[in-house]
């Protein structure tokens, strides 16, 4: 990692906290408004769109996981599709083979992914920047193969994958299955985002960021860098794994081909577009990952890939520090204009 990109990451993560302390009311009002809109939306929109929004939240959560690792701790990962896949498969296997209720699969998926992420964090300690990216890339490439691996087939279903039944809303709740899943995902999302926000502003969060900004200085201050780095890897995998489990429940199907390296790249794109080191930005990343390929396809089926590329270039050009950075920039501009008057 170059020192320049470290600086941009540092810049990106500093202002929101400063603003949060200076004007907590505005931030809280905005969050409350967003939640309100999120609660009303499923009653006015079609099922299909609700399903898409559920997926946006799922990808947002997965991107948040990556964000904790890359944005806050400065470790690169191209392997988050693997954690997402492990989470999805954990949920699918628990639901289909052990008949465990869908809501219990989330903590299980989280725990499994935390463990895998934590263990993967150890070799990652010795690797920096590009080398870590390569090591995690290997993980992403290996995952679909492992899922197809013959001895594991009784559980994973091999290439055929596993079909899951969509959870019905609990009896007495006047919602359809899509609405119910939407609210379920929303609840999980709010809890996990609040958790991440808490983590980021806590002592632990400061330690995590200190390691990103200057590992040697952090170690000198008495931070156990090895422990914090591996733990961050674990927590990051946990977030992405829970997202994977939610995604599996929403899609109702898992197969090795769903969790290829391309998914990792999508998550990385979402991370950068949303804003590295921004918690709400992750959600915007989810919006981008889900909707922009569709928009590109609507413009031209044959050139969808190229149009996606053009949109991505434009977005990066207009918002070099992601959506979160753009909002911050706009806010400061408005504020300074107000002061001038």
């Amino acid at each position, binding site marked *: 990692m170059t020192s320049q990109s470290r600086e941009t990451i540092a810049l990106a993560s500093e202002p929101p906290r400063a603003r949060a302390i200076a004007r907590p009311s505005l931030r809280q009002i905005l969050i409350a408004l967003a939640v309100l809109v999120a609660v009303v939306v499923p009653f006015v929109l079609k099922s299909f769109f609700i399903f898409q929004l559920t997926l946006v939240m799922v990808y947002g959560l997965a991107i948040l996981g990556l964000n904790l690792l890359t944005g806050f701790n400065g470790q690169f990962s191209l392997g988050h599709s693997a954690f997402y896949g492990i989470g999805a498969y954990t949920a699918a296997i628990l639901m289909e083979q052990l008949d465990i209720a869908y809501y219990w699969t989330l903590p299980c998926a989280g725990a499994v992914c935390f463990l895998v992420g934590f263990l993967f964090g150890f070799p990652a300690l010795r690797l920096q920047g590009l080398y870590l990216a390569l090591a995690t890339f290997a993980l992403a490439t290996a995952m679909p193969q492992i899922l197809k691996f013959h001895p594991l087939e009784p559980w994973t279903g091999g290439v055929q994958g596993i079909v899951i039944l969509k959870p019905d809303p609990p009896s007495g709740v006047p919602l359809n299955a899509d609405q119910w899943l939407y609210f379920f995902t929303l609840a999980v999302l709010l809890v996990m985002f609040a958790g991440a926000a808490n983590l980021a502003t806590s002592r632990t969060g400061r330690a995590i960021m200190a390691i990103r900004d200057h590992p040697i200085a952090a170690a000198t201050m008495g931070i156990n860098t090895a422990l914090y780095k591996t733990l961050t890897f674990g927590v990051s995998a946990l977030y992405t794994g829970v997202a994977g489990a939610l*995604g599996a429940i929403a899609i*109702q199907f898992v197969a090795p081909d769903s969790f290829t390296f391309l998914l990792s790249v999508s998550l990385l794109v979402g991370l950068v577009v949303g804003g590295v080191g921004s918690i709400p930005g992750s959600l915007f990343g989810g919006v981008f990952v889900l909707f922009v390929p569709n928009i590109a*396809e609507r413009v031209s089926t044959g050139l969808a890939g190229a149009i996606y590329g053009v949109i991505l270039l434009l977005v990066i050009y207009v918002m070099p520090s992601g959506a979160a950075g753009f909002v911050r920039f706009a806010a400061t501009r408005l504020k300074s204009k107000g002061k001038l008057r």
Partner: protein
Amino acid sequence: MKKISRRSILAAAPSALVLTALPVRAEKQYGPGVTDTEIKIGNTGPYSGPASSYGTIPKAEAAYFRMLNDQGGVNGRKINFISYDDAYTPPKTVEQVRKLVEEDSVLLMLAPLGTPTNSAIQRYLNQKKVPQLFVATGATKWNDPSHFPWTMGWQPNYQSEGHVYAAYIMEHQPNGKIGILYQNDDFGKDYLKGVKDGLGDKAKSMIIVEAPYETTDPTVDSQIISMKSAGADVFVNTGIPKFAAQAIRKAAEVGWKPLHILSSVGASVGATLKPAGLENAKDLISAAYIKDPTDPQWKNDPGYQQWVAFMDKYYPEGDKTDAGNVVGPSFCQTLVQVLKQCGDNLTRENIMKEAANLHDFTVPMLLPGIKINTSPTDFAPIKQIQMARFDGERWTLFGPVLSGELSG
């Protein structure tokens, strides 16, 4: 009172009219996506992603419907063919298919492509009672009308092809020692199962080497050498073109000359045999169900000439040596027959009823003698194939059209 009665008579008059009109209306029944002038049909395919070479199939389908619409459509209705990219990933397929069903409200899904992608949408479409017709994959599981009454396959499935090969081996080399090369996924295992089931009790003693490969393997050389050294004298090669070609070349290099059976998946002259070296491919045995567009024997065939004319006018950028461009229009022609049989009763129920009611139907690019047949308990439209031998230049068909039905 009088007033009221008069009014009620007036009010009753239109409803009486409606009543008398009812029998006429009963003939015109429309499901979602159908009007007097249009039928909406949904499709997904891999325009991007790892399987994007198959993206030409839905493109050829779209081209075919353009031609059909120029000719007036089906029973006066134009086909509005809506096809989205699924990048060959199951989650994207689910999203796109939900969009087609819930937003675009298509009448049915035609030939969605790929085994994992179709698996992902099968339960959803069956829950919603939307026809998932003529899926573009040869897996055996699509013929399961009792569990999935809204899903139907199209091409001969890999297992029944395996049956046909087993029967050929039993006839020509009843004491053969068989080596099988297969792709380590459901597609490869389908073949393996078909050959084994076809051999029956003799499978255990006859198959001496089962050699899987991964699509990520660089070569299959070691598999070929192990078969040769094990003394196999029958080689069932079920690889996709890249690996099938490697296997043919390697076998020739090491001087191994077994009875070499090449599955239809890898039987393309352009994609497999030319890279393998035509001289190495001589006397290969395979099976086919469509006319290979690179095969010169069809040059004067009216079905082939029709197809070339269609390609020239409506899909000139399409590759005329790619069998995908033959299969795509054939899906469409089968659907058009179903729509014709449905007449003005274009409900989803009736579509499935007529799709399961095809008798001895054929499309121009199927091999002569191969017929499409379905019934309420048989959702495998094409079950017949014909054996072919490669003479060093082209496939020459031989023997009768065979049926590899799984019940047998």
